[in-house]
């Protein structure tokens, strides 16, 4: 299951935080753990270069996209490789929504659309859509082109 998707700005403030199957009392712990992980490791990392960590039996893949950092947490079948796929879908769809690498402002301007995009990609912890062009159409309630 994909346990969490989290976006933070360069100061570590949360922009989007979505959990699946994580008890409320553990969420704060995860939030601070991920932000700390990013603060320690993301400095100087190239856009979309994927970093990886594991914490107990849970995997974390994270990266930088413009001014925001993106974290995806998973367990079981969503190991580091599946999460790499998930984060790739997320980053390419977010870039697509923003038209370029997002600044924090641009990200917030497109906030509603980004929420819809995430809703198309992950549904309660499962990967649902993977193609950015299809996702772009789906958030506008348009059917996929290949159909």
């Amino acid at each position, binding site marked *: 299951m994909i346990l969490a998707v989290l976006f933070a700005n360069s100061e570590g403030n949360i922009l989007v935080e979505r959990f699946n199957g994580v008890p409320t009392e553990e969420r704060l712990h995860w939030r601070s753990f991920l932000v700390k992980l990013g603060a320690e490791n993301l400095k100087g990392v190239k856009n979309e270069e994927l970093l990886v960590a594991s914490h107990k*039996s849970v995997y974390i893949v994270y990266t930088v996209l413009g001014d925001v950092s993106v974290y995806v947490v998973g*367990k079981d079948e969503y190991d580091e490789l599946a999460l790499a796929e998930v984060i790739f879908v997320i980053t390419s769809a977010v870039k697509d929504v923003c038209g370029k690498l997002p600044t924090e402002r641009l990200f917030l301007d497109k906030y509603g659309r980004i929420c819809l995009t995430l809703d198309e990609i992950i*549904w309660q912890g499962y990967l649902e859509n993977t193609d950015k062009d299809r996702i772009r159409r789906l958030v*506008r*309630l348009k059917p996929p082109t290949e159909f």
Partner: protein
Amino acid sequence: MAQPLVKKDDDRDDEADYSPFLGIEKGAVLQEARVFNDPQLDPRRCSQVITKLLYLLNQGETFTKVEATEVFFAVTKLFQSKDIGLRRMVYVMIKELSPSADEVIIVTSSLMKDMTSKTDMYRANAIRVLCRITDGTLLTQIERYLKQAIVDKNPVVASAALVSGIHLLQTNPEIVKRWSNEVQEAVQSRAALVQFHALALLHQIRQNDRLAVNKLVSSLTKGSVRSPLAQCLLIRYTSQVIRESANTQAADRPFYDFLEGCLRHKAEMVIFEAARAITELNCVTTRELTPAITVLQLFLSSSKPVLRFAAVRTLNKVAMTHPMAVTNCNIDMESLISDQNRSIATLAITTLLKTGNESSVDRLMKQITNFMSDIADEFKIVVVEAIRSLCLKFPLKHRSLMNFLSNILREEGGFDYKKAIVDSIVILIRDIPEAKETGLLHLCEFIEDCEFTYLSTQILHFLGIEGPKTSDPSKYIRYIYNRVHLENATVRAAAVSTLAKFGAMVDTLKPRIFVLLRRCLFDNDDEVRDRATLYLNTLGGDGAVVQTGEDVKEFLFGSLDIPLVNLENSLKNYEPSEESFDIYSVPREVKTQPLAEKKAPGKKPTGLGAPPAGPPSTVDAYEKLLSSIPEFANFGKLFKSSAPVELTEAETEYAVNVVKHIFDGHVVFQYNCTNTIPEQLLENVTVIVDASEAEEFAEVASKPLRSLPYDSPGQTFVAFEKPEGTPAIGKFSNMLRFIVKEVDPSTGEAEDDGVEDEYQLEELEVVAADYILKVGVSNFRNAWESMGADCERIDEYGLGPRESLAEAVNAVIDLLGMQPCEGTEVVPNNSRSHTCLLSGVYIGNVKVLVRLQFGLDGPKDVAMKLAVRSEDESVSDAIHEIVASG
């Protein structure tokens, strides 16, 4: 009111620091949500308010029940709008609010309408929302539409229904299971994602039907799977089928070719999945492992951290079971020690520590030293634990490894890290006699500047036990006495106890210890003063150089042979009165014992499940338990207790396992019984043992278990006499006999009358290995030479055709039940000869060393030369006899 959202234009980059959500406040946004009730809806404005609500929720903000209900009712009004963008937002918002059952009804009709709409995308979204908020009753109403949706031409609709199915299976399995025909059809879909989702759902529906999973895997491995994600699932299901198929013969292992073929897939995800599946095969052979290891090795030098991590993580796991298979990757792995990603570096190091040989230890330690300074404590602990195992594997390297541990002990670090190091040093001191003195000095230096009271007291206690047995105990006194000056009361009290132990054990030190203890009489803490007074009196007030009495030593060093739980209970029940508390009134019998590990065949945990718990009891605990039973009290010292042997299949009515306790002239079988039927109470439980196939054994005592309630394990014992000091062997058949009483489930009370009943258990064997203790030696060659050739016995044996050399080596190790030394139990790949060194203690406390030389004679035949040295030639002969008759 919060700032309205501003539409982004390209020329506004200079306003980057201005957030559209600046000053956003829940109360204000909830007020704004009233626009949803306007008769003339403004879709743009409504979308903006929903975005703000989403922003709040995505920040971890929560709505109260009233707030959520209010917003939910308002949002449902938005179904009136035909604006597509707004409709999409409404779907998300309803899912986020996840309304309660009584509210759902408000939107059901709108969603049902959308679900039967001609617009595909309305259908897909309505399905997702309905399935999120639905309950069983509503689900039966919409089931028909969902089944149609699964086979819908539009892949988005099909996927929406399938993923809904995956979620609904958790709550309404009986309904979703009815969809398997449609799901089966969707597995054949040309749309890659539909196939992926359908495969996941179909497997979940049929996961308990082994035949169906087998069929599914057989058909898909031949056909075409369209997405890498689905291919990964298929690999996982395939390995499940392989695991569950009884045939583990490598030659005709089913589906191996499929897995091997996946190693050449273009998607990295698939390659890894296949490589992992191969490395996790039961009894995997070198031939099967090699291609998987080769691809993993290539990924070790990938430019992508995720791939390096995945590769090193997999190899790390392989190294636990097949260290030799990973040695080829050591050079690549060494370059990962300096990897920027600390998770990768730690995994690389721990793998290297598992696969390295004795000669590479020093070089490795040098590399690790540089690495340790810049990783977090959690990684350091992993490394420390790996170093501890390495040191136990190569005891000759204890000097450099111990130095390493003492160096890192001096550096900065948190409690858990320091505790891991101290624990490691203590274990090394216990297991490697040569490391004792240096290890103790390292610990002494550590407590000179230790900020953790817990660790200081633990070390002081350990020093008190080990220090007096060293060649020069006086050198530790300074470190201990310094604690009395410099530390807090807890540590000071511990130091006083340690000093007393030195005084009791080393007669020559006694006068000086007395001087120090007397100084402690003026301490400002009660406990410290009390201890000093107590010890001064116990050890004999004048402090002359006299031998300390055995009872005093017992008082100072003896363990509290009363279960702490029992003591706690007795103290709680004790009412202060004239009569003082009598420690001898505390019962010594351990009431319940945790269940021993079940022999559960079949399912292996997937992913990274916690490892199964180890055996629940240590020899110490067994010894205490047995000595508390009067019938066994005169059997002497317990020589060995076996691991629990299961006498019942998993999941039977009564679970029974047995532990064999070997004494010099007796054997005691401890039957650990568990009653798994809530409606039954068993009483007077005994095991009737038939020893007709164990001629040298004669039953002398049996201790029944008075009562065995549901799920509360208990023990019954049977003791046998056997010829003293000899390794008598035999087979025993067992029958559980008891009185069964019905229990009323509502009251939990048992009926008065019971019926006698019996339950057949499996047979039990006492074998030669039960008479040998696994005791390692740190330097086998020294031990071998100092033992001398006086009682040496050498002979050669043909072991016949064997699957591999490694299998033959393991079989002999198991047969003898001795401790492999210096890592010689591991047979290098493709070798045609191997030497294995074993050590142990034979019953009667006779040390035994064994040198086994194996060679391949022809393609599969294994020949073995067995050389045994011991302190007693009859024992050397006995070892040969074990091998000859095994």
